[in-house]
């Protein structure tokens, strides 16, 4: 197995980016690394760009945009850059000067246009470019650690040479879909420098953080590939939360241990080429500097938190969700939430449950990692349950082809090249998936449709505003398919649609899910159920390490149940992966 990650024994570059999906432990890994480096006497700056950052909880210090020294760790400073705040500030800098000069309604259309995911990402990149490119920062600190790395698509956008020269030098062409970059022409040199620093292996290390589970390793593989492709080659992998030992007499403990080992064996080939380390699964929560120091210094279990006993929970299981949807004859069911929370299993179990109750059900997913055929086993379908999958790559390719076919005739090669560049924008993927969803949702007229993952709030708003815009155009020739026209009203109707937010009882997935819920609200869609998945608290494990974790879930269960969810269900951590129709039935029993 992997050697334990220990920053004290490694050559470390000035910049370290920690990336990985929500809930894998990026923040605690980054903090523990920062503390270890600072304890060596290095001057360290720790920066979080996660809007749901729990950096201040971990360090137990209030943080702002400006670096602040951490009292209990000499040499360590930290700051918390909120990209949504930055995006807001950016939006205001564009719209603000025109208040009072343009009508409110006109300003509102600008604001909506600047509310997309791109703006947030570019704003985040803008914030950390300053840190990456500023010589003074490097003179002041030996290491700058970033909790959250820029995504491949932001970097690609910033690298688009034609985008910069075409758009910025001659804005009348407006060739590329640069929206939020348009106001930033003065920053071209800064961004170039930042992108250069990132791809310089002597300056930057990309730390991929993953959990020992299949979906999180697949995600790390994807990030690794994407970032390697644009030149960030100095990468290492940290498998976080590896259970070091287990109690043979405790069934949960044995299953937990074995599932982790099995997942690691199935690490994607390309990711196996990346230098890998592990960090142990610990019973204590990784907050407070002392606990962070523990992580690298000794691996003894520190079980004071595990003393408490759990109070019984009074929450329904997944069968409560299924009964509710069955009774109300909900036609479209979405499972949403961050990757790795078990959306696909929950969606599959809901589909099985509803079909058991005699409904005709269609189940579909966009998760490339979760082939439903695998979840079910080939020969395992029943008469009233059908499955399909929406492959993002296929949908995007099909969409592009359609566009070029529809719009490309009569264009010169140059014009076509312009069009193709626009099609490389991240919006394209959202729109392509959106159309695929719309097509599947249309089936709900005949059967219940269960969809694993959903279009984002941003896409929904985009559709809404564009449809409104189409209506106003007297000569609208854009041909909006019927399925798309009906989609939004259908999703907004709680009688027809039930949204299920799936989360784990941990800080990041809960906070991110609550942001997702806000996005949906903006689009006029209410989430009906929250499902807390894979809860150790809901098991009867006696394993000291796992029990410690179970206790730390309590706070998050209360938050979901008490503050966030209209209705809340909980699923215990299950000893085996549920594969096949009959096994999925166990999920709901």
């Amino acid at each position, binding site marked *: 197995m992997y050697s334990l990650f220990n920053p004290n024994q490694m050559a470390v570059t000035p910049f370290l980016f920690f990336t990985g999906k929500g809930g894998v432990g990026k923040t605690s890994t980054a903090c523990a690394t920062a503390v270890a480096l600072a304890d060596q006497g290095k001057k360290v700056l720790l920066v979080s760009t996660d809007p749901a950052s729990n950096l201040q909880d971990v360090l137990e210090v209030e943080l702002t945009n400006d670096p602040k020294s951490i009292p209990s760790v000499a040499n360590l400073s930290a700051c918390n850059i909120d990209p949504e705040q930055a995006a807001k500030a950016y939006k205001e800098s564009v719209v603000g000067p025109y208040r009072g000069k343009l*009508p409110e309604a006109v300003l*509102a259309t600008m604001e909506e*246009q600047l509310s997309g995911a791109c703006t947030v990402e570019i704003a985040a990149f803008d914030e950390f470019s300053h840190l990456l490119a500023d010589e003074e920062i490097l003179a002041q600190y030996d290491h700058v650690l970033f909790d959250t790395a820029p995504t491949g698509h932001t970097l690609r956008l910033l690298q688009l040479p034609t985008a910069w020269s075409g758009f910025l030098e001659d804005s*009348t062409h*407006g060739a590329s879909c640069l929206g939020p970059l348009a106001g930033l022409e003065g920053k071209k040199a800064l961004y170039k420098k930042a992108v250069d620093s990132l791809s310089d292996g002597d300056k930057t290390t990309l730390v991929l953080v993953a959990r020992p589970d299949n979906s999180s390793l697949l995600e790390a593989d994807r990030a690794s590939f994407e970032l390697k492709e644009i030149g960030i080659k100095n990468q290492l992998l940290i498998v976080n939360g590896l259970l070091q030992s287990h109690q043979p007499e405790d069934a949960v403990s044995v299953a937990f241990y074995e599932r982790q080992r099995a997942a690691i064996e199935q690490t994607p080939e390309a990711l196996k080429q990346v230098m890998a380390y592990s960090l142990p699964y610990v019973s204590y929560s990784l907050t407070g500097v002392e606990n962070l120091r523990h992580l690298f210094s000794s691996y003894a279990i520190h079980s004071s938190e595990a003393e408490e006993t759990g109070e019984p929970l009074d929450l329904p299981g997944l069968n409560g969700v299924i009964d509710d949807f069955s009774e109300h004859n909900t036609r479209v069911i979405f499972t949403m939430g961050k990757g790795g929370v078990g959306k696909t299993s929950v969606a599959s179990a809901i589909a099985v449950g509803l079909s058991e109750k005699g409904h005709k059900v269609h189940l579909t997913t966009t998760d490339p990692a979760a082939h439903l055929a695998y979840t079910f086993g080939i020969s395992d379908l029943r008469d009233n349950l059908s499955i399909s999958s929406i492959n993002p790559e296929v949908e995007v390719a099909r969409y592009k082809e359609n566009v070029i076919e529809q719009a490309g005739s*009569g264009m010169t090669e140059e014009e076509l090249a312009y*069009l193709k560049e626009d099609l490389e924008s991240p919006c394209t993927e959202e*729109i392509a998936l959106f159309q695929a969803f719309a097509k599947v949702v249309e089936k709900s007229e005949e059967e219940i449709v269960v969809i694993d993952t959903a279009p984002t709030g941003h896409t929904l708003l985009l559709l809404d505003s564009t449809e409104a815009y189409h209506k106003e155009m*007297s000569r609208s020739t854009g041909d909006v398919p019927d399925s798309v026209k009906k989609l939004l009203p259908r999703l907004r109707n709680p009688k027809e649609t039930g949204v299920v937010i799936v989360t784990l009882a941990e800080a990041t997935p809960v906070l991110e899910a609550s942001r997702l819920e806000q996005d949906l609200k903006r689009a006029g869609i209410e989430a009906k159920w929250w499902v807390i998945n894979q809860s150790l608290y809901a098991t009867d494990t006696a394993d000291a390490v796992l029990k410690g974790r179970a206790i730390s879930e309590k706070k998050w269960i209360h938050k979901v149940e008490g503050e966030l969810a209209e209705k809340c269900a909980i699923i215990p951590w299950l000893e085996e992966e549920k594969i096949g129709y009959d096994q999925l039935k166990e999920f709901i029993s």
Partner: protein
Amino acid sequence: MKKVEIFDPAMCCSTGVCGPTVDPELTRIASAVYSLEKKGFAISRHNLTDDPGAFVENKKVNQVLVEKGPDALPVVLLNGEVVKIAEYPTTEELAEWFEATPSELQEKPRVRVSLNINN
């Protein structure tokens, strides 16, 4: 020479490929403007999101916005006068204004085929 200015609504990109479907109207106008510009005609486009200043400075456009709101976009000006509201100029209109032929506005790549008719 005549001068045409197009004031677009708030848009992500001027080819319109980012909407829920491609609006051929937008791709048509993007490529027509591109062709006309290349030929040296005085035509320009302003996107509300990227260039709001233009919507304030131009008194005629500003007046339309104050009276009719954002739904009045796109607004088209010919020699500084509002000629179209809430729609783009047709290819024929553009051709007429610039005294060009419609086909010149949608130039296709030309392929030369040599025929030998002597054999």
